[in-house]
């Protein structure tokens, strides 16, 4: 063709290149992590600094931002429920907005299309707002219980803030983990240290766990769990946008809007919660673990009928259509592989990060280990 044709079509091609470049810029910067801008630290120094900074200002500094959680566990696709159901967090990508003004001033919002759920903690007042059913729930905390530690009736998205995840993971770092620190990560546009934890045990499915700490405030900004043989994190939770300035006060004041249903609930008095707690206790009694550290396998008694029973126990149909655990289980079991051995026989479900074995004698074994390891665990009764 003519020379001018190439020149002309160069314009849209250049436009496409610029757009592709702009789209790729974020992840690329995070992954390539150019020049380190932070001084080098050993893991010990870093944790000490972080601890010092935390105790110095009495916790996490006031901040706000957007937390994104992405899971690609390799599970079969889960049906979309459209609500803030915790089961949704197992696949796809989710976003919550966080405003943190202090231990007693927290707002967590989970926006979905044309809906939003909010948990607002202000002093001793806790509100749960769901725009979907136009309901404001005032959660009263029994005196003597601590808000921060107590479970809210609906699992709140604050459970997956980087702060908590990091703390949990750091506690788990023991002799069976190789720990190193990089000082050139970028999270939400901020320079960050990255604590990289690598399991020493070969049979673990976890390649490594990376915890990013803000270079200035030492606030955990991101947690990534990498499965073996995968370049993308199987699970990731972190800030996509963060500012360390005290959020506006109106974020923590909540007045139920006119026309909204207002409910009150006292934590601890709630019957359903008590049942939940009882159920959890029962389950905990039957729970055993096999192994140590990264390759620990949880063994618990399990019958598929239990879930069906659980479904009928929900009086007001709290499970949405798709979130019904029974249906979910059916869905998952479809992709299970039947296995057998000296320990018996069962069905094996393998994801990138977690292997589960449902034995025919009614045990469920779950662990971040290879299938060989979990069948080995199944042999230990």
């Amino acid at each position, binding site marked *: 063709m003519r020379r001018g044709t190439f020149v002309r079509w160069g314009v*849209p091609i250049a436009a496409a290149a610029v757009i592709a470049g702009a789209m790729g810029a974020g992840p690329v910067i995070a992954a390539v992590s150019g020049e380190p801008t932070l001084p080098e630290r050993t893991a010990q120094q870093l944790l000490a600094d972080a601890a010092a900074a935390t105790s110095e200002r009495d916790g996490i500094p006031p901040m706000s931002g957007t937390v994104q959680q992405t899971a690609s566990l390799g599970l079969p696709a889960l049906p979309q429920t459209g609500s803030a159901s915790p089961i949704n967090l197992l696949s796809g990508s989710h976003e919550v907005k966080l405003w943190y003004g202090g231990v007693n001033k927290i707002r967590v919002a989970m926006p979905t299309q044309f809906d939003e759920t909010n948990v607002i903690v202000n002093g001793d007042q806790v509100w749960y707002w769901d725009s979907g059913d136009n309901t404001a729930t005032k959660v009263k905390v029994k005196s003597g219980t601590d808000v921060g530690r107590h479970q809210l009736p609906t699992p709140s998205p604050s459970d997956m803030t980087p702060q908590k995840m990091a703390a949990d993971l750091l506690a788990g770092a023991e002799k069976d983990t190789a720990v190193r620190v990089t000082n050139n990560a970028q999270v939400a546009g901020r320079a960050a240290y990255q604590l990289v934890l690598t399991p020493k045990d070969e049979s673990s499915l976890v390649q490594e766990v990376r915890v990013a700490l803000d270079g200035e405030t030492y606030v955990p900004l991101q947690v990534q769990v990498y499965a073996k043989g995968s370049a993308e994190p199987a699970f990731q939770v972190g800030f996509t946008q963060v500012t360390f300035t005290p959020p506006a006060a109106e974020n923590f004041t909540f007045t139920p809007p*006119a026309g909204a249903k207002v409910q009150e609930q006292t934590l601890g008095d709630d019957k359903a919660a008590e049942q939940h707690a009882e159920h959890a206790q029962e389950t905990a009694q039957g729970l055993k673990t096999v192994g140590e550290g990264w390759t620990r396998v949880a063994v618990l008694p399990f019958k598929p009928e239990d879930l069906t029973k659980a479904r009928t126990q929900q009086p007001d149909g709290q499970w949405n259509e798709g979130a019904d655990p029974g249906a979910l289980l059916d869905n998952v079991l479809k992709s299970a592989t039947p296995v057998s051995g000296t320990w018996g026989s069962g069905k094996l479900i393998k994801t990138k990060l977690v292997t589960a074995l449902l034995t025919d004698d009614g045990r469920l074994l779950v662990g971040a280990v290879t299938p060989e390891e979990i069948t080995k665990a199944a042999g230990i009764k």
Partner: protein
Amino acid sequence: MSTAETEVDVRRTPGLVPVTETMRTVEREPGAAPAGPPAAAPPPSRPVAAFWRLLGSELGLTFRRPRNQVMLAVLASVPLLIGIGLRIAAGDEAVGGLIGAVAGNSLMLTFVSFSFLVLLLMPVSVAVVGGDSVAGEAGAGTLRYLLAAPAGRTRLLAVKYLNAVLFAYAVTIVVALSALVTGLVLFPVGPVTLLSGSTVSVAEGLLRILVTVGYVGAGMAALAAIAVALSTFTEVSIGAIAATMVLVIVAQVIRAIPQLDFLAPYLLPTWWTRFDAVLRSPIDLAALGQGLLVFGAYIGLFCSIAWARFTGKDITS
């Protein structure tokens, strides 16, 4: 010239009135004598005014066209129907969420109307005007006369796209106004409850509607860029319109398939519905900003494709 006049008189034929004065009296361009030396012609003296004149002509063509008027009327009627439907169903307690909120507040009808219309009906009307822009002229043969006038290819394309953008905003404004009027008539006026559960004044509610109109209009302008680009590839306007709608529907299907979730952030419909960011407290400016960036990327890409195609196209229709 004097001899010409006498000759013309002799040759006069019925039905053709010789107006030999025409060429001398009608001033087209100061200093450009019809028979002047070729190089003496000054460049167009009022390019900006001439551009607006062509755009005005284009807008007149678009908004006076019965087909487009019907589309605007249909779009204006939808909020009315939604409003009446919700008014009838208002007693029903089971309605919750955004729709339930309408019963309590007149301004919410605007947001509900957008949430219904932004996914199909508004894109259809924008696709019709955008897809018809170049292909329609090519099909009717008027394109060759416009270009011989000479409208200039880049200039004509700019006018065509601006016209489609203005129509996209007209569509958005018509929906917003119809919903506002219907809402004010059928539902109580008062502070607006946002999705976050907080409440803002009527004035701020109106301001947020204004922001929504700006954002949704930009989203439709991005679709118009696709439609205009496709329009430069064909002489059959219905082809360009249908192709644009197929793209919109394919995008909707992709969004509905969970396995293809990772594609969603790159699709226009995903961002069209993000106007719900104005209903949060505080307004989720990050979401709006990212949406506008996506729209801008689409506009930049497809306008440059349209330009590359149209400036190099052989006009054989």
